[in-house]
């Protein structure tokens, strides 16, 4: 458990937002638990950032509620110390140094300048602390955003696309860092438009498309949904097709053989044996999470 404050759950209930005639978020409900890293996934423009901004009191919901530990963000006495947030498109004044940027927000979360140095060190920006942000790379800005979120050592973190602009080394570092924060009992919500980016980081996934919830579960349940495909090679493809038709299985030619989706290899093998069908290969092909993600978000039919 993290020190003094119990990590709050984040909760969105029947949340909706219209910008004019555009329905950006629609009847969205999900819950983010402490002690886990939750991936908030959806393609660009699916409503992720709007949802996060409603959760943090920056955008007023048209319908429903977005709660931090059971209350609206703004109702907490020191909200910035409860939830550390790094949102996409949050700016930095180019003429301000990294250290001065943090120092500007330190009084409101009740920390001193030493803590600013500490978080800069934590995100690997010590050497650039006294340089103006105008000269920072995208990756350095991401790190400064993360440092800002960490300033108060908050029990909950909301990070919008934190991997954007990080080099591969930075992404590996971020992965370990987020896992570490969740292991301390903190609530960690990370948005991304690429499942692969957070696949090795998250425990839970919330997937939205066109502002609506399409899936919420643990990552392992999502993986199970990917289903197994069975790959079959036979010298008598005609008889295989007949067999599949008989059983009501799909059967798609691929390479030198065929694929039977959503049917375990054992079942296909047993059926072939019973029908006296000669098989040269019978194999399970791995679940492809990215495929499931794309299917859920409607990127592929």
């Amino acid at each position: 458990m993290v020190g003094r404050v119990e990590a709050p759950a984040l909760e969105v209930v029947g949340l909706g937002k219209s910008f004019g005639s555009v329905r950006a978020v629609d009847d969205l409900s999900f819950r983010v638990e402490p002690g886990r890293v939750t991936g908030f996934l959806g393609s660009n423009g699916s409503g992720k950032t709007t949802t996060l901004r409603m959760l943090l009191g920056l955008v007023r919901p048209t319908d429903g509620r977005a709660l931090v530990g059971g209350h609206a963000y703004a109702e907490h006495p020191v909200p910035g110390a409860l939830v550390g947030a790094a949102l996409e498109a949050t700016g930095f004044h180019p003429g301000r140094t990294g250290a001065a940027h943090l120092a500007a927000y330190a009084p409101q979360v009740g920390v001193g300048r030493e803590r600013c140095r500490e978080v800069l060190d934590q995100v690997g920006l010590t050497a650039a602390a006294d340089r103006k942000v105008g000269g920072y790379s995208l990756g350095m800005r991401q790190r400064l955003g993360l440092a800002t979120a960490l300033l108060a050592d908050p029990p909950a973190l909301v990070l919008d696309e934190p991997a954007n602009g990080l080099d591969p080394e930075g992404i590996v570092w971020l992965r370990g860092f987020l896992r570490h924060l969740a292991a301390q009992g903190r609530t960690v919500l990370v948005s991304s438009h690429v499942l692969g980016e957070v696949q090795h980081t998250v425990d839970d996934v919330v997937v939205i498309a066109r502002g609506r919830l399409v899936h919420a579960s643990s990552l392992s349940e999502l993986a199970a949904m990917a289903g197994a495909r069975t790959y079959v090679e036979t010298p008598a493809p005609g008889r295989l097709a007949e067999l599949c038709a008989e059983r009501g299985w799909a059967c798609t030619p691929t390479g030198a053989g065929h694929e039977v989706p959503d049917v375990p290899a054992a079942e296909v093998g047993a059926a072939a044996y019973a029908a006296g069908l000669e098989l040269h290969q019978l194999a399970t092909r791995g679940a492809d999470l990215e495929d499931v993600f794309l299917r859920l978000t409607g990127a592929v039919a």
Partner: protein
Amino acid sequence: MSRFTAALAAEWRKLTSTALWWVLALGMAAYLAFVGAAMAFSLTVAPEGFAPPLGGLDAALTVYGVLNAVGYVFPLVVGTLLVTTEVRHKTLTQTLLAEPRRGVVLGAKLVLAAGIGLLYGVAGVVGLVAAGAPVLSAVGDGAFLDDPEVVRALLLGVLVTGLWAVLGTGFGAVVPQQVAAVVAILAFTQFVEPIARLALGAVDGLSVVSAYLPGAAADAVVGASLFSQMGDVDLLPAWGGALVLLGYAAALTLAGRLATFARDVV
């Protein structure tokens, strides 16, 4: 630290961590030094056989009066920038994450504006006196720096500079786009209001209205200005002028709170 003082400390650190505030303060001091010296020369030096346009205390008061007459663009701009830089560089998101009560954020900006405006007033006085006083005493009838009327005019000049900065913050809350806000300020102060004052002053019955223009209200506070010397315009009493300026600041701030500061921050 209370919520408000924390917000005020944050605003102070934001303003002072970039170069702009002292560049503008220096600019104001230098500009007033130049105008003050030029004015002192033009009032006290006359061709052979002619009397100088003004002499004695009047010359001194007119020279020191340029603090308000030409210096007020600087506090207006710095007050406006307290809001517009946050919008321009998208730091408003982080500011509102730290303090979601937008009234507190705006209130802290207004208080900081008042303080920084007074500081600009002092910078202006320093520039003005440093360049104007030596000229007045060398070629005119004296600097009159120990005259109570001069001291009063300078102190009120500092006060009115503070009020201009507060008004600027209110204006920034209404027009948060930085370039638009600065252009509007320059256009209004250098063009619209001077013409309006002359035009309104020329029409019987409307000169009363011109006393309520912000520049005229500021002149009323200070009690000396180019305009009030040039035309016989009725000015409000000093306290009335201050109230009018505060009224503008309050109205603009309220409008900004209901418009810009009520909007979704995306």
